């Protein structure tokens, strides 16, 4: 069998989302074979496509071409937008809106990530779109959902991390939350739940012939990931302790320095057997050979001391060799690897996990491949992120049958565009 059986083949999805959660979720559905049409805002620059190169913090790949088209060369954009076609169009104009309606007629799903109310204001709410495509599956994924006092509020993943309680969980003991970094983990979670909810609705449509709308609150979709803590409060009225790298029952658990600068290994001793195995590897003079430490409770009590002794043993060793030694002895251990080391990681290389792609503006880089393997997909799709406005003509002509003259007029009237120069 050579034919790939993509689960979402013949499904067309219109994407109206920005930043990470929506774009990544749509990339994942592109991986599954769906035809993704990414509608990008024009003339306002999408958040991950700033016009000015000063905003290089978003990960600009600097070169001659990216000076001219910086909006096409940001890592923040290009890492989350594979397997799509792009249409940059002004939906505030009536022609722009009409184009959207025409696209909806020949699509199965529409996904929007605006704050609640924005779609209504633009005149493209579910109620209106449904008239153009009665069995449309539509997902709205604002930070806090479509209804409720926060429905119009705006946020990034970092804000949802704070709101959900995860920011405090990430703050080590005796540390102010102001020292804790912003992370965007909830974007990854929302992206996955987007795929799940769309596939559920499509399955229902296959069985019952109906479309529907989905209210995906990015806050609510993440909160169950904190189940242990939610249940501790729900049952015992207790808030979680801030424990840093430690664990309530495993000890020792933490990161320890290794040979070199900023080199670390993570070690997690699950039980007395792991501890015994570890002690077998450590020189006889080490104070870790203490009969008191043979049970977990006393190891938890003396965790600080044990960390110091253990670090004396790890600090002279190479992190990769030490990881291999510990793993050979069935002790959970992992070398801490930075972004660069991950791309060069022997395990991932043996699995061919990264793929080199040439992007006409950003250049050649390695990108992680799909987050799942399907037996029925022998040749996973991996098309580089679209350039801004790259498929304007293709979409308008091939999908909607608009003539060359008609398209030219749309350029001229600034309804579509492929540049964010002012």
């Amino acid at each position, binding site marked *: 069998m050579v034919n790939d059986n993509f689960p979402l083949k013949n499904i067309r999805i219109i994407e109206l989302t920005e930043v990470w959660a929506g774009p990544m979720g749509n990339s994942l559905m592109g991986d599954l074979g769906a035809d993704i049409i990414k509608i990008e805002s024009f003339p306002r620059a999408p958040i991950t496509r700033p016009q000015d190169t000063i905003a290089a913090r978003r990960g600009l790949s600097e070169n001659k071409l990216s000076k001219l088209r910086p909006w096409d060369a940001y890592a923040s954009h290009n890492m989350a937008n594979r397997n799509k076609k792009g249409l940059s169009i002004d939906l505030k104009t009536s022609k722009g809106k009409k184009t959207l309606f025409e696209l909806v007629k020949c699509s199965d799903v529409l996904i929007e990530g605006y704050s609640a109310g924005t779609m209504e204001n633009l005149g493209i709410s579910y109620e209106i779109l449904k008239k153009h495509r009665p069995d449309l599956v539509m997902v709205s994924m604002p930070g806090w959902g479509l209804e409720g006092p926060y429905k119009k509020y705006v946020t990034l993943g970092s804000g949802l991390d704070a709101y959900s*309680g995860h920011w405090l969980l*990430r703050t080590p003991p005796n540390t102010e939350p102001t020292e804790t970094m912003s992370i965007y983990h909830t974007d*990854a979670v929302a992206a996955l739940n987007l795929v799940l909810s769309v596939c559920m609705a499509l399955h229902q449509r*296959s069985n019952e012939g109906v479309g529907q709308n989905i209210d995906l609150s990015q806050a*609510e979709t993440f909160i169950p990931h904190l*189940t242990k803590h939610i249940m501790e409060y729900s049952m015992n009225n207790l808030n979680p302790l801030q424990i840093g*790298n430690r664990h309530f029952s495993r000890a020792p658990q933490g990161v320890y320095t290794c040979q070199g600068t900023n080199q670390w290994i993570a070690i997690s001793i699950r039980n007395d057997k792991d501890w015994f195995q570890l002690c077998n590897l450590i020189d006889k003079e080490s104070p870790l050979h203490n009969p008191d430490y043979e049970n977990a409770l006393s190891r938890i009590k003396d965790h600080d001391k044990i960390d110091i002794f253990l670090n004396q043993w790890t600090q002279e060793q190479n992190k990769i060799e030490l990881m291999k030694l510990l793993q050979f002895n069935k002790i*959970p251990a992992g070398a801490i690897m*930075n972004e660069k080391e991950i791309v060069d990681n022997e395990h991932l290389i043996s699995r061919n996990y990264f793929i080199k792609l040439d992007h006409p503006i950003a250049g050649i880089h390695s990108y992680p491949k799909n*987050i799942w393997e399907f037996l029925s997909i022998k040749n996973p799709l991996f098309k580089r992120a679209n350039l801004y406005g790259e498929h304007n003509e293709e979409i308008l002509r091939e999908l909607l049958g608009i003539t060359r003259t008609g398209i030219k007029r749309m350029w001229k009237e600034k309804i579509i565009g492929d540049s964010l120069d002012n």
Partner: protein
Amino acid sequence: MKNNKKHNAFENLLILEIGDLIAAPYCTKLFADYGAQVIKLEPPEGDYSRKSGPFPNNIPHQETSGLYLNLNTNKKSMTLNLQNLDGRNLFIKLITKANLLVIDKPPYFLESIGLSFEKLQILNPNLIITSITPFGDHGPYAEYETNDFISFALTNRMSPHGIIDGPPLQYGSDVILYQIATTAAAASMAAIFSISNKQKGDIIKISGMEAQIGNVDTRTVFEQYTQRLLQRGSIDLRYPTGCYPCLDGYIVFGSGEDRFFRRLCHAIGQSNLLDDPEWAIPANRESRQEEFEIYLLEWLLERPKQNVFEICQEYGVMCTPINQISDLFVDPQLKYRKYFVKSNHEIVGDITYTGAPFNLSKLKWRINHSAPRLSQHTKEICTKLINISIKELVLLKSNGTI
């Protein structure tokens, strides 16, 4: 099994779950709570989450672990000893009835008892198998020992996470396992949908490591674009971004990009700054962070976090409070949406559970019944689903199969 006349698309789905703690159970919960039938195949001693708590009043009990109870709502429990021949035969009977098997076990687990994935698919060509492993089924790390902490260390998310000059730091323990679970659920659902489109079964492999590295909130592509590693504790966007103190706690700003900076000036009563090109032009204000923070802190420190949140958001500023878990239970938004759900449990009494991860207008999420007691449905499943006689059942019990 339920044999109602009226089925929705999900009540006809039969899902088998093999795996402890979080990854497999959370994956199948995402189906069970929308109406699918999920059978948890537990080893005789039960899912490990039954032992791990939290427990009411901190008293361990096999049936009252909060983690277990929340992750296994709406499921049925059957104990099954796969190491013996009769157990294998029962499993084969279940496989012929199932649509999806979610399994979180080492790559060699089923093969060691003579049941490769390929063999299972011969028994049931429409079966979808979703296999979750920490590192995939081949490669140098495939058989590494791991848990949530080590699996997190072996992605590229731990290295850049932490406070300035501090060590690499984990995220909240377990969140990685939930992410892997949700990855497995999304892929499984796509395959289920494609079966409704007349395709055959499938085998899906999820490597926890790749599920992390291939999703967003990772930095491999950033590093290559910029030749710059993210430093722990760094703020990667324009100020004000990140956490600031206020009267009774802390708040977080999402981004200080131009339009948000402007809105914030209005929100804190400093619109006049924007008349001055030194502030109005983004490049000019880069070096004036400390000066701005004086204005900002003066305003923040007079107001409680919920108040700061609401005022800033009225102006369209990306601002959120730093909540404690307890704050969620009184949060106006979650209350309005009736997010948390109360349901009665026969031993624990009323329990408040986490709610729907998303709301579909035509498919109800609900807790129909509490998580099952260990082996609660073994007899029902054996007699009604796979037609084992009561006589055989007694035998299977006596030889330790169930």
